């Protein structure tokens, strides 16, 4: 698959991984968190969020579990695995490098 598709998917994965870094969250929460944190700029297409979660689970980056709390509906919570944590760290550094390079090359000074 061509690299630009990888980048799109890669960025989405990075966001999802980051969203569950501190604690386990369910799908709705993840979508909402990304929406909120980006100030509404990055909005997930729901249709791709869930398949992506499943895919990342299959790769062993995160762990999904159905949890029923009293008085709440059954929800599937996603938790970062140790492997996922490593991937997140790697992806962060790569993106940092990539963004740094973009900044230098394309003049994308932060805050401009």
């Amino acid at each position, binding site marked *: *698959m*061509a690299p630009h598709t*990888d980048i799109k998917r890669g*960025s989405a994965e990075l966001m999802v991984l980051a969203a569950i870094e501190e604690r386990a969250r369910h799908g*709705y929460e993840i979508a909402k968190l990304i929406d909120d944190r980006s100030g509404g700029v990055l909005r997930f297409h729901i*249709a791709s969020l869930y398949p992506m979660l499943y895919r990342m689970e299959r790769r062993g980056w995160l762990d999904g579990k159905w949890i029923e709390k009293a008085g709440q509906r059954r929800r599937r919570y996603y938790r970062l695995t140790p492997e996922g944590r490593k991937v997140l760290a*790697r992806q962060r550094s*790569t993106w940092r490098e990539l963004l740094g390079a973009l900044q230098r090359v394309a003049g994308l000074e932060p805050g401009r």
Partner: protein
Amino acid sequence: MTWIQRLCNRRRIETDLAEEIRGHLEERVDELVARGVPLQDAVHQARREFGNVMLIEEQARQVWKRRWIEDLLSDGRFALRQLRKAPGFAAAGALTLALGIGANTAVFSVVNAVMLRPLPFPEPQRLVSMWPRSETGPAGPYDVSYPNFFDFRDENKVFEHLVSYRSSPISLTGSGEPVQLRGEIVSWDLFPLLNMQPILGRAFQPQDEDPGVRAVIIAHTLWKTRLGGDSGIIGRTINLDREPYRVVGVAPPGFNFPVGGEQVQVWTTLATDARSATVQPVTRQRGARMLSIMGRLRDGISIQQAQAPMDRIAASLAERYPQHRRYPGVFLQPALDDVAGLARGPLLFLLGAVGLVLLLACANLATLLLSRTTEREREFALRLAIGAARSRIVRQVMTEALALALIGGLAGVATAAVLVDVAVPLVGTTIPRIQQTTIDGRVLVFAMALTLVTSVLFSVAPAARLLHDRLNDPLKESAYANVHGPGRLGSTLVVVQIAVGLMLLSGAALLMSGFVHLTHRDPGFQPERLLTFSIGMPGSEYSRARQLAFYDQLLERLGHLPGARSAALAMPLPLTGSSMTVAFNIQQRPSPPHERPVSNMAIVSPGFFQTAGIAMIHGRDFGDTDDADGAPVVIVNRAFAERFFPGENAIGKRIEPGATSDERGTRMREIVGLVENARQSPLGSRADAIYYFPYRQLPWCCPSVIVRAAGFPASLEPSVRSVVSSIDRQLPLFDVRTGDEILSVGVTPVTFLTALMVGFAAIGLLLTSSGLYGVLSYSVVKRTREIGIRIALGASRPAVLSMVVRQSAILVGAGLVIGIAGSIAARRFIGGLLFGIDGGTLLLLPTAVAVMLATAWLATYLPARRAASIDPMFALRSE
């Protein structure tokens, strides 16, 4: 998670997905309601934001279902783009593959035509050939007598039809120039056996075997050309061997039997053999073994089931007729296996050799691809980091390999088509059915499979590397590329290439030495300036006396031809591959019939040894007095004397050969002469033991004629023809050949095999050396900076040179050790496959090793010199 587990889990995943989406919607609705939106509106808004749930679920499912097809397509597009970006790599790869796949496809197409393609008759798998079998093993074809055949035919219950056949040249006169035709004498049910019908007229019937019946079925080509293609031919008579034969049928176009030989032009029944010029027709001589046998198994009976009943018949025959050679069993094999005959071993050998070439090509490509993968590590690492799955990248590499293999495969099939077109006609008809070689469906499937296997083979190494290496590192490493040389995989591949390359080389050396041995050894006669030919003499018109008179007159006139030195008769001619073997009894050590020694025999006229250039060692040549009235004599060759009279003087000894031509039966004959070995068979490493009869004491029909010319032998042909037709205008001349032609035709299969093998070895050497060169020069390029620093710090250039050479020497050394072991092992295995070519001398392997070393040195020297000439300043600045 495996594919199977994933498949099982799909249903669970889908229900989970549906529940999560439902939960997601409800969550949103709850949130909106909490904000004060009325429930009805909240549901609508959530739905609106979310889109069509069904559609999304469907899309989500599609993500799982269709992704691999899309991925494959985009992988393919990307692969082609990558190949376009690296045209040098693509061209080198495609060319390597085209050679490898092309050579393999070409050899396979020959194997297919000769060994695999079913016989062109209905239900060919039920056709079985039958040889007699002695205690020591199958006796070979042409070894059944008529009386035995009749017994097998009548007594067996396992064959629907059992047919005898033997080839017999027949002259056709009365329709233009007299010609000699290829004829086949068969039992009546040949066509029912093959389940075929003549296109005109009828097949033979049982009564066509009755003595006195002269029925013939003619080949389609003969009918169309020589006989005018008139459909009124049925019922007409044609003159075969100057006797009128009634044409009862015309065979379908393309029909030939026996399969694999030259086109037979007429088939007639064994009635021809039932009236014979000799005392007793061969159809009644149990000792005259001359027939080949083919049968069609009854429906539902296998070869294994037929074995025991046929063995029983053979055993009972051996019991009933103890005075004849004992064959207590039979050897049954599919008729198809019989067709390939002796060519089977060499073809399998070739297939193995050419497979090694492909292996080399794969190793070479793997090396190329490996260096490319290393170069692209940063690209892969980046893609991996931004979310590409490792498996996707591996698949990408494999798709690229497949794309390359497909291009190479297509070019390979084209190469094979050209090779077949060019090479196959050169082989002639010495290998059965080889002229029917085509690139058919089976060959295409083979080429396709080869392409797929190849692409997997040469992409496994790079893919394995991608799977196991930490690809993320290079991103951080910046430009400080790894300094570990070609890597373990690359080194392993080079070692494999050198080992396989050496095996090919030693195989080629083996064949070359065999070839040189065959062509340069003394054939025992002087073939240069010899002209040989045969005459189609009809037994019906030529009584014994007339035959003798004819040859007397012929030799007399030929001897006086201007440009001819001498002329003589021989049957069979040396080196033509045809031989007659007859058992004999030794007077001083008599033995019962079935234990008697067997040797080649030949019938020659006085002056034959001198004309052929065979040296007389002791004793005397035959003379005019060695005729029917003279004392029975023979002359033997050195091999005969050494084998049957070791340490004794053979001259004066007496033997009683089983060959006879008159009512006096076999006679004790005195050995009166000893001659040098002249080879009867063109191949094989041992000299054949031969004993010679004087023609006048055994005037079998019909000897060939040899003429020794003063000058160029072929120029004698017109005058020879006119001499023959001046004696009898209706006698056809055939098989007119010079001695040199006989010599070269006999070794054609070996020439063919050797040329191919040398070609394979050359390709192998090229691939091996370019593989080694590629790996070394790549590692030099990668180490440019390191080498630059070394030189800057004071390393001498010879030291740098020797560093690269050392690296090469380790690889080459390991490859040679494995290759030598492989060659020795392979030699044991292939010894028997190759027309009896000897294993060759011990010198061959060192020669192959030397050639490989020289090539390896060349492939090492260039990169080493480049390393030594690296400019440190330039190397350091280049970063």
